[in-house]
Every structure is written in C-alpha cells, then in structure tokens.
C-alpha cells in the first residue's frame, strides 16, 4: 500500500466533521497523528525516520526506555541514545490568534483547524524528541513558549492552544518580525495563519525568518467559503476585526473578489517560493491527517 493510499484510508478518521465532535484538543491531535503515523508505517520507504547519532550521559528526567542497556552492560554506566533530529531541531509553532481565525463555514473554524494541526505537529515532533515552542500571534506576539521536548511541555502547549484568546487586530508582518527577533537559535518555524493581511508585509516578515537561517513552513489555513465566495443573496458582511459592516450583492462582487483572493494567494506562493519556504494551503474542509501526511511525505522526498 502506498503512502497516499494509507493516508486516504486514515483520512476517514480525521475529517473536520469527525474531529469537531472530539472535545479535547489532545484527543483530536492524537487522532490526526495516528492517521499520519498509520499512513507512514505502511510506507516506510516514503516516510521519515529518526537516525541514531550518538550517546550522551543520562540525566534525571530522560525517558527510561531510551537508556541503552547494552552499553550499560559493557561499561556499567548509563547512556541515553541521542538521535540526529532530536538533538538539532527546534520547532516554533506560530499560531495566528486574530479574530479572523474564528471564521467558520463548516465544522471547524480556522482557529480550531490550525490549533489541531499545531497540536498534531507538536505531538509528531515530540515523538522524535524534537523541541517544540509555541507563539500566539495577534498584532504582536501575544504569548511565547520556548521550545522543549518534555511531556509537561507538551501539555502546556496543548493547554495554551485550547485557551487561545483571539485579538481583534492583526499585523502579521510586524508579528513575524517580533517573533524572528525572539528566536535566537536556528530552527524550524511553522506558521499557521489565514494570512489575511498585506501580502507584501507578510512576505517581508517571512524574509526575516529566512534571514536568521530558520527553516520556515507556512500552513495557510483558509475557509472554503473564502476561496469560493458562494453567497447568493444580498447580505451584510461584518468585518471580524472591527472593520465595520458592508452590505453587498455577492453576485456582483464574486468575480472581482475571487480575483483579488487569487492574486493574494499567488503573491504569497511566489514570495514563499523565492525564499525556499514551504507554502501549504489547508482549506478547513480538508481532512487534517491527509493534508498533513501529504505535506510530510512531499517534504521527506525533497529533503
């Protein structure tokens, strides 16, 4: 069975409709991770694995199961197996916590969708002993949790993700600059945002990460309605970030709106491509595990 087939099979378990019925973020994330992992197991050649790098001295708090008992038998000293990624990767999950992320047309809001992805990614990374940090972004970095690979840290990440308080304003470009300033060590910056801001400012902010030698992945969380604008009747659109009210005939605006949206996405894609940043568009009606596994599979192929 190929990775795609495995992902397809598992995606039946991690659809947004199904996940929306799971109350806790941790369980949701686990469902997603299970889906991703089951897909990976069925395709070991296509997946990724954790490479053994060296031993290090055991310190309290390390996982007992990672103690290398063979070395202990030969040397009577405790050594813990250390892996390449575990030792080098510091991942920063940057979650957009603006009001616009609360929009939903289907089972999950963009924020719920992004949080689930963030939790799932955190789980996956920590399985590999990578350190994961979390930054909640509004018009600035509202909260920042430095990276760590411990279980309590994971719980903290989940707690913060579950208790996100959105802010009415967003300034994505500026926030990215702030975050880039805060992250001293080289790492992987994973951005989860609807990127509804000036594309040029966003790209400049991303450039800052790249300038600091960070590896960057952009998960563009977007609602299906924002992509298709399927409204028929005249409605009043209310800005979710205190922009005001806008009565409009959707039929008359659809073509132009879709064109603007397309231009925006194209500008983001182009900016990301030019900076060797992975851009992944994730509509909120797509199964999370499938989308995630697709991306991870692609990444491992191109790495």
């Amino acid at each position: 069975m190929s990775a795609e087939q495995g992902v397809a099979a598992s995606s039946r378990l991690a659809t947004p409709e199904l996940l929306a019925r799971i109350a806790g973020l941790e369980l949701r994330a686990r469902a997603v991770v299970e889906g991703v992992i089951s897909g990976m197991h069925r395709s070991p050649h296509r997946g990724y694995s954790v490479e053994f790098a060296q031993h290090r001295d055991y310190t309290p708090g390390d996982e007992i199961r990672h103690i290398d008992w063979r070395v202990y038998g030969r040397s009577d000293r405790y050594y813990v197996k250390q892996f390449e990624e575990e030792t080098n990767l510091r991942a920063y999950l940057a979650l957009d916590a603006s009001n616009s992320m609360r929009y939903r047309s289907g089972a999950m809001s963009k924020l719920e969708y992004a949080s689930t992805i963030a939790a799932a990614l955190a789980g996956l990374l920590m399985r590999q002993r990578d350190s994961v940090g979390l930054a909640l972004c509004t018009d600035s970095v509202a909260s920042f949790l430095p990276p760590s690979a411990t279980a309590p840290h994971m719980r903290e990440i989940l707690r913060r993700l579950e208790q996100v308080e959105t802010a009415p304003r967003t300034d994505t470009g500026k926030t990215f600059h702030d975050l880039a300033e805060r992250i001293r060590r080289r790492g992987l910056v994973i951005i989860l945002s609807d990127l509804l801001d000036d594309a040029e400012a966003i790209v400049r902010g991303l450039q800052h990460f790249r300038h600091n030698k960070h590896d960057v992945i952009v998960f563009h969380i977007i609602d299906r309605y924002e992509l298709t604008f399927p409204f028929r009747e005249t409605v009043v659109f209310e800005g979710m970030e205190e922009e005001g009210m806008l009565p409009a005939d959707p039929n008359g605006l659809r073509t132009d709106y879709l064109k603007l949206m397309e231009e925006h996405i194209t500008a983001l894609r182009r900016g990301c491509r030019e900076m060797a940043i992975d851009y992944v568009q994730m509509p909120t009606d797509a199964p999370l595990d499938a989308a995630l596994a697709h991306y991870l599979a692609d990444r491992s192929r191109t790495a």
Partner: protein
Amino acid sequence: MNGLSFANPAFLGALALGALPILIHLVRKRRIRVVPWAAYEFLLRSRKRNRKRIRLEQLLLLALRILILCLMALAFARPLIRNLNSPMMPRDARVHAIIVLDNSMSMGSRRQGASDFDRARKSAEAILGRVLRQGDAASIVLASARPTALLRDPCFDLQMARQRLGTARLSDLGTDFAATADFCASLPSREGLRLETYWITDSQQSGFAGLPPERAERVWRRLTDRGPLFWVSTAAGERENLSLDAPRFSREMVTPGSPVGIEALVRNRTRQARNGLSVALRIDGKPVASTLVDVPAQGSASARFVFPFDRSGVHTGSVELGEYDGLERDNRAWLAVRVRDALRVLVVNPTPSSDPARDEAFYLLTALAPAGASEGARAAVQPTLHTGATLADRDLRTFDAVALTGVQSVAPADASALRDFVRNGGGLLVVPGATGDAARLNAGLGGAGLLPATFGRRHAAALDDAPAMNPASVTHPALRAFRGTDEVDLGSARYTVSYDLTPRPNDPDVTVACRLTDGRAAVVEGRVGQGKVIQMAGPLSAAGGNLPYKPAYVPFVHQLAAYLAADASAQRIVQVGKPLAARFDVSRAGARALLTDPTGVAKDLPTTTGADGVLFSYPAAERAGTYKLKVGAGPSAGAEAFAANTVLSESDLRSLNRSGVQSALGAVPLRFASADDDMPTVARTARRGVEAWRVPVLLALFLLFLEALLARRFGRRG
C-alpha cells in the same frame, strides 16, 4: 394613422405588477442577514472597484423584470391596433352587411376543383354564419354588368339570407364594378345599423374599366361614405384561359346551297403556344365540320369553316373548342342565321332605252343576274325590272331591295311607299341618271327623308379627266371586300358624270362609304327606320362612266345589293347582357311571343305593333347560348333565333392585386382580404383593430431570455 385600444382593458390594472420586483427587492432588503466575514478587506476593495457597475447592472435587471411583467399585463389586456380614420365599433353595435357576390362569367374559373364563385360563396356563407350575429341584418347583391339584388331590404333573418344565398348562380354576364357600386349605394339601410359592404370577387381587371378613375372614385365614395368596404378577393395567382369570339359569316346574305364562310377567332391567353387545337362546328345540333388551329401564346388565330346550308329558314349552331381549360363557358361561341331562298330586287327604270349603252338599268340587271353564273348563284339574286312611271302597282313588301336608276323625279305617293318600305327593313339604292335633275330628286326623295345626302352640282368630264373611285377611302362594311384588293380594280373605274353629295350633317346614321379620287363622296349610306339607303354620286350605267366595263362592277353591285337586302329584321348574334329584338310584318299584329332561353325555359312575352311593324324586344340575354323565338301561332307563326355570346373582356382573367384595386377605386378607404382568410378575423380586425397581443408576449419572452442571459453574465445566476 393607427391608434391603440384594448379588448380587455381591465387587465391594464395588472400593470401594477411591474412594481413587484421593486417590492421583492424592498422586502428582501428588510430581511437581509448579517454574515461575519474574515476576508473583509478583499470584499471592501472589490466593492469600491465595482460599485458603479453593480448599480448599473442591478438597475438594468430591475428594469427588465419590470418591463417583462408590464408586457405580460399588456398582452392579457389584448391590445388592438386600428386605423384612426375608422372609429372602433362598440361591442353592442348592430350591423347591416351588404354582401356583394360577383357572379360574372369569369368567376367560373376553376382551380383545385373549385371555382372562384364557389370560394366567393363560401366567404359569403362565413360572413352570414360567423361574422353576423343575432340582431344584425344582411342584403345580398349579385355583381355583374347587370347587378341584381337577391335580398334588397335589410334581412334580419340570417337563416333565410343563407337560403337565399344558396340560390345564387353563376351568370354569363360581364363585370361592371362601378355599376354594382352605384347599385349598392342606393340600397336601403336601417337607422341605427352600422353598414358594412363585403365585396367578394375575383378582382378582374376588366371589371374596373367601366368608368374613368375620377368618376369611379365618386361612385365608390358614395358607398364607403355609408360604411367600411371589405374587398374579399378570390384571385390567387395567374389564371390562364382559351376563348372563342362570336362567329362571323363571310357575307351578309346566306342562301341555300351557296357555301358561306364561318369564322371564329380563338384567343390564347396563356403563356404557351397551343398548336393543333381542335375546333368544331355544330349546326342545328349536329357536328358538321372540324379543324385544327395553331394559336401563339398571348395571341389569336382564326378557325375557318365553309358550310353550305341546304335549306332556308332560321338555323342555330356553335363553334366549340375541343380543349378543356379553367373557364369553360367561353370555349363555345354561338351562332344564329336566317338562310333565305333568294334576294329579290326591284330595279326601277322609268326611261328604258333599246341601246344598252344608254339604258340606265341594263348593266345593273345583267350584273345582278349574270349569264353563265352557276345555278345557285343565279338563284341567289332575283332582279325584277319595273319600267312604269309610278310604283303604285307594285307591292314593295315582296322585295328585299329596290334600286332606283335613271329616275328624274319621284312622286309623293311613291316616295311615301318607299319610305314605308325602308322603315320596315327594306333596302333602297338611289342611282342618279346621266341626265338627272338633282333638285327634283332632292325634293322627291329628300322630302320623304330617304336621302342620306343632298344631290348637288352635276359634273361632266372626259373619261381621261374624270375622277375615279378611291378604294383606299373605303371604310364601310358594304364595300369592305374591296378594301386593299388589287385583283379587283375598283380604282380604275371613272365617273364621266357625277353629282356632288353633301351628307346630312351631324347625323350618326349617315356614313360616307367611299370617295372619289377628287375627294368628293362617291357612295353614302344612311339608316331610315329598320332599313338602309345607299346613295350613289354617279350612274351605274355606261352613260355615266366606265364602271360597268370593269371587272369590279359585278362584285360591286352584288355587295351593295347583299348589304341592302341583309335581313334587318333582327340582330341575331349578340353579346350576353345586350337586348334581343326582332321585327315582324304587321300581319302578326297583337300576337304573343314565346321565347325559349338556352336552358330550355320558355317565356310568354308581349309584342308591340307600330309603324315599323310588329316589334319584339327582350331587355337582356343573360345566358350564353341560343334563344328561340316564336311569334303568333299556327303555320303562319314567325320564327326567329338569337345567339348570345360571352363578353369578350370577361375572358381576360387578369386580376388586380391589393394595390391595383386600391388604385382603381381611388382614395376611398378599403380593407383588402383574401377569400382564404378567416372572415370573422377580418371583420373583427376592422371593427376593433388588429389583435397585437403576440407582440408583447414575444417581446416579454425575448426580454426574459435577455434577463437570464444578463443575470448569468452579471453573476446573478448559477
């Protein structure tokens, strides 16, 4: 100029439905829902860029929707377009319809199994049955050269009108639309009824020829001033026809055993030449001869027969075309002729001479009964010489013609007898003597009204200087045989003695038949009562010139005699529509006449007795064919026959179209329709206007399609 009205004006209230799209818009505006939207900036920018366009599109669609609803409401109101010159007829108005049914011969033209008359009658039935309603009235007129009314007074019993219409029959008469219009304009009408005239006809072109356009317009105006005129035409496309003209005999007098030429002109009114057309001659009901003729397209050719009648008396017959065409009635031409035993001529010469060269009657008598002629020819003319001073001892009634030669003067009693003879149909030839006295002749014969010209100065000249007859001046039927003939040289005949002839001025009955080369009249003909008088300028003897020595002399004399003796008692070959008249001698005074028409129907009719004998007259022959007349009873009963032939112009089946009819009628208002049209629709359209609901419906459908198209294009659909 047209106006607009509505059959269901109540539906105009539904125009308010046009406000429905606005109401829907307003209601929906009140119920408008609020949608939180994240990508607000994009929406805002989009709206700023498209605000004017969207507004325009919205207004355009709104206008289209309003228009569609208004048009549908308009369609339900059934708009009527009508001529403003004719006021709209109120729904409860009553109508008096004059139905004019053309029953002229041309209406017998058939195509696709039905004649124009059948089609016209169907239209008339449709008018009576489906156009007129209870309370309406009808008059029915048959249109022809002699218009007649089947129903003259307005008839409210439409069932009876239909029955009367069923009695209408096609006639053989010609067409005279103006006369019929005049007839219709004088029909009585009823107060309070709207008069409508339905003229159902083949619109034959010749039917409009009766009056010049300006007079025709006045006639038609009289009719249209009373009410609208519907011209219902049965004509459809070109109608082709073959026809026969009335037969003609080669000479005036027909005698037994003497072959006579009978000629009938075949007319081909088609676009193709007809070769080898079979034409047959039938005499007294029996076929006696046939021939083939080639007739060019749109041309004519004569069918000629030579037939010897074997016995005297009245004969009838016909010339028949052997080929069937659309119109049958004119494929047969009828003839009637009286064959006489002999022509009896009394030649009067009061001063006979033993020297034939000086005798005034010798050459005339010799020429009338020439020696060596055939037995039959001799029998044709029986001259009798009368040399007495007076005519008292002669019963002139036993002669067909009298020739006065070398007469110096005429006694009043003789003049009176001659006058009675001529008035009763006799022929008189007045030939002056070489030494005659013009004044005395003028006093005697002229005083009795027998001279068509006054004798004037006597001219005497040497033969070489004498004036000759001028055949080129011949215009008269009596001498038509000499017109343009070289083999009979009448032009070399010179008059050494001649008199000036001054024809009676302004007398339509007087004709100069031939002139001399010096321009003076040579032969003058005049009518007196039923008879004819021919007056010569010079003698017919050798004493007055060299005419008796010329080859032309014998035929010249015979032509004059035959013309004078031609039976004037009846004009036997007539045209349909013309009167029939015959004269009998006074011995049948007070007798009744029995006229049998071509259909076999006999009518008992009175005669009138006057100075010219017993006269029978019948106003018009309405059917083509032979009419037989019997006056008196027993073996002495007088018999006569007439042949009535179709009107020549009626065989020309060219019809006028709408513009042609309008042009012929002048500027009178006219509603033109085809007999194939639905009569109730035609009438309703004229009374109420043209139903125009299809226009708004089609327009609404088009706008609906346009609205759907634009809505899709503007992004309001799909």
